Structures are given as structure tokens and as C-alpha cells.
């Protein structure tokens, strides 16, 4: 399989060092789940990969091309932010249709695609609603529809299901899983839920306490029993959370 994404020696300092060094590579079609304690730099890492935050150290290669932040790019990358980031003055349909504009699709087609993907995330009938008139979970699903609509090579998702209830979470997990299987997209998925990661990821990356390194990279191919894997990961994250909090109180 082709290598899609290569991170080599990525590091980021804000006022404090946030990411120490992180290197990994992702092959096309993998579904990578990123785990780690609060504030360890998961969002920052995703932003670096998405090219909206420059790294302090290291390089990101996407399809063999260097990702340079703050530059006009032609990367087919879809991103679901931790917040929905919908435009409040546009209907859900127009929000989705907007991001199809750079792809040069005519209006009617953009609308049709938007309707289709809003249907996929279970928002049929809400196409004309403004974001302010639907619930937080529905907004988040609209943001997911937006990311899917551009049919990106790489889909970056930052805790996309955090504001969903258990049922919708399950539905969306299956939906993303299905889309991933049918389209063969590469997905990087940040989550706090170890169960979720184990349920949907092909690869799991556990980051350490800040400044982040890779604590553990696991192939989730069923060779280790699920329950044991979840227990191990839970133990690991407890350690890292404690370490991060211990570090903060020093």
C-alpha cells in the first residue's frame, strides 16, 4: 500500500513545549485513532498535519509533498474541528455546499451533494435550518457532512462525536466506518474514548503527557483480545494523565 502521510520529528513549542517529537507514517486507507490526555497536543498535531499550524520542528509529507502551513494549497484534506465551525448565517445545506465551491462544481450539483451528505449523517429534512436552530449534536453532524462532502483523501477528525449522545455516537461511528470502508479514505481520528478507538481504528496511537511523544503505537488487527487491549490502554492513559497533572503541580 502507498504511504499517504509521513510525520518526521514533528515538534511544537508555544509558551511551553507542547509536542516534543512525534514521528509516524500512515498508509493510504488506514484509520488511525489518536489518544492522549487532555491538553497533550492532539488538536495541535492535527492542525499541523492539516497545514493550519506551522510546526516548530520536523516535517509533514502528504503524498510525498511537504505540507507548509499558511500557504495556498491543493491538498484534498477534510477537517472536522473540535467545535462545529459552521457559518451561522448560512443554512446547513449552504454550509456544506460552500466548501464544494473551490472544487468548481456548479451550484445545482453542489446543492445535490450537500443534500446527499446531510442525509448520510441523518439530517434529512434539516437542510434549510440555520445552525443556530439545531442542537449541538446536529451541528457537529453537519460539520462531518461538510468534511465528507469534498470526498477528501485524508480526513482529520478532532473529537467529532464528543457532543453526541450514545445512540448517535454509535450511529455516526458506524457511518464513518462504512464511509471509510467504501471509499478507502485515510482517516486520522482524535478521541478520548478508548472503547471508540478500539472499535473503529485500524491503528491506535497513544500520546504521552505534555510535551507529547508517542507512548504506544498499536495495530488494532484483532490479534490482541479487545477487552485486554482496552484495559491496557486505560492503564496507560491513567499513567499519562497522572504524569501530566504531577508535572503541572511541580
Amino acid at each position, binding site marked *: 500500500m502507498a504511504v499517504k502521510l509521513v510525520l518526521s520529528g514533528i515538534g511544537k513549542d508555544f509558551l511551553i513545549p507542547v509536542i516534543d517529537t512525534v514521528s509516524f507514517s500512515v498508509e493510504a486507507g488506514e484509520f488511525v485513532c489518536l489518544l492522549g490526555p487532555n491538553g497533550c497536543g492532539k488538536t495541535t498535531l492535527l492542525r499541523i498535519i492539516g497545514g493550519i499550524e506551522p510546526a516548530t520542528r520536523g516535517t509533514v509529507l502528504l503524498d510525498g509533498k511537504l505540507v507548509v502551513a*499558511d500557504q495556498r494549497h491543493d*491538498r484534498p484534506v477534510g477537517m472536522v474541528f473540535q467545535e462545529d465551525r459552521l*457559518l451561522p*448565517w448560512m443554512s446547513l445545506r449552504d454550509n456544506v455546499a*460552500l466548501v464544494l*465551491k*473551490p472544487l468548481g462544481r456548479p451550484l445545482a450539483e453542489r446543492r445535490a451533494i450537500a443534500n446527499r451528505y446531510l442525509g448520510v449523517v441523518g439530517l434529512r429534512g434539516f437542510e434549510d435550518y440555520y445552525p443556530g436552530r439545531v442542537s449541538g449534536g446536529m451541528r457537529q453532524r453537519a460539520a462531518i457532512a461538510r468534511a465528507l462532502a469534498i470526498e477528501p483523501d485524508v480526513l482529520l477528525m478532532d473529537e467529532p462525536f464528543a457532543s453526541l449522545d450514545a445512540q448517535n455516537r454509535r450511529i455516526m461511528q458506524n457511518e464513518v466506518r462504512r464511509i471509510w470502508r467504501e471509499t478507502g479514505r485515510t482517516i486520522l481520528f482524535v478521541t478520548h474514548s478508548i472503547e471508540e478507538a478500539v472499535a473503529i481504528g485500524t491503528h491506535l496511537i497513544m500520546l504521552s503527557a505534555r510535551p507529547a511523544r508517542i507512548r504506544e503505537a498499536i495495530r488494532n488487527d484483532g490479534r490482541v483480545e479487545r477487552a485486554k487491549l482496552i484495559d491496557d490502554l486505560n492503564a496507560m492513559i491513567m499513567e499519562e494523565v497522572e504524569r501530566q497533572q504531577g508535572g503541572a503541580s511541580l
Partner: protein
Amino acid sequence: MTRRDWATRLHLPTLGAVLVILVVWSLLSWRYGAYVLPSPGAVLRGFAGILKSGEIWGHTGASLYRIVVGFGCAVGVAILMGLAAFVSRAARGVVHDFLAVLNSTSVFVWIVISIIWFGLSNWAPIFTTFMITLPVVGSNIVEGVQNVDRRLLEMGDVYRLNGRQKFVAIVIPFTLSYLVAGMKVGFGLALKVSVVAEIFGVTSGIGYIMNYSREILETQMVFVWALVMILVMMVTDKLVFDTLSRRLARWR
């Protein structure tokens, strides 16, 4: 509109206050004479007079024309300033300083300069209106552009919207409420300022006719035209700007 609506709108305490003022006004008018303070009745008769003769439309129209041209140009230029502020950080600084200077320039400066430049013509009050309202509308727009949600622009970047697409989809809608707020204040200012500018050099408009009425000792007409001004102000506020704000807030 139901009767209840009218009752709440007219505000009984306000009506009472108006009544008191009218009584005091009448007494003062009777004490000091019609030249200093014409009676409410005389003002009302004067108002009916210009309504009947149609004089009201000519002067109000002339004033409104100047305001709309001067203020309209100011809004146009202010929007361009907002565009510049969005496109370049350097331009934002320049626009900022420029507006600060304009903001601290007195109306009178522009009135005098406009007479020198445009002589006794329509363009003098138009120019004055333009120069006075530009900083008000401009600073509002620039402030709006500065406050545009960075996270939304970032979303635009991720999805590869170009500058124009981001401007149209994100910056303009975000800034519109600032623009309308600026226009509301700006239009009120335009009305007040253009009337002052009309004292000099033109032979039509509310400002001109007020000053003329004073010269020919028809004090009641000064009051009548002041009344016209107030009415124009209130009507545009209700009709134009309230409607505009409501339509903009549709998605809220």
C-alpha cells in the same frame, strides 16, 4: 395594529410629559412674544401650511438628495476601506490612522473647505456630509472586519476557499451587523450635518429654509422645519434601519 399596541406605543407617561411641555411652552410664548418663541398653535398652522403648499417636499427632497449622495458615497468608500483592511494588515493600519484623523476634524472645517472648493453648489453640503459620515461608517466596518471570527476563516483555509470566497461567505456576513449599526448612526449624523452645511451657499433644503425663516423673522417656521427634520429622522430609522436590522438577524 390593535388598539392595545397603540396604547403601549404612545406611552401614557410620555404623553403626560408632552402635555406639560405644551402648557409651559404656551405660557412662555405668551410671556416673551411670538418672535422669541412662537406658540404651539402657530407651529402647527405653519406645518399645515407647508404641507398644503407642498413646500415641505421640495426642501426635504433637496436635503435628502444631498444626504443620500454624500452618505451613500461614504458607505461605498467605507466598504472599500473594510476590504483593504481585510486584504492587508498594512492597509488596516493606514485606514485606522486615516479614520482617526477624520474623526477628530470639526464639521466646520469641512463646511469652509467645501465652500472654497465647490462654491455655492449642491456639492458643498454633499462633500461635508461625506467627510463627516465616512469615519463613523468606516470605523464600524473596520472594527467588524477586525473582529471576524478567526476560527471561521481558518475553516475557510482548510477547505481551500480563496480570498474572494472567504470575503463573500465569511467577512461580509459577519461585518453586516457592524455596517448597519454604523449606517444608522452615520445617517443620523448626515442629516444633522448636511442641514448645517445648507446654511451656506445653497438656496434649497431644510437648513437653508430654516436660516431664511430666521432672517425674515418667521420664527414659527424655524420650529416647523425642525419638526420636519425630527420626523424624517424617526421615519427613516423605523422604516429603513429597523427593517434592515430585522432582515439581517433572520438567522439568529
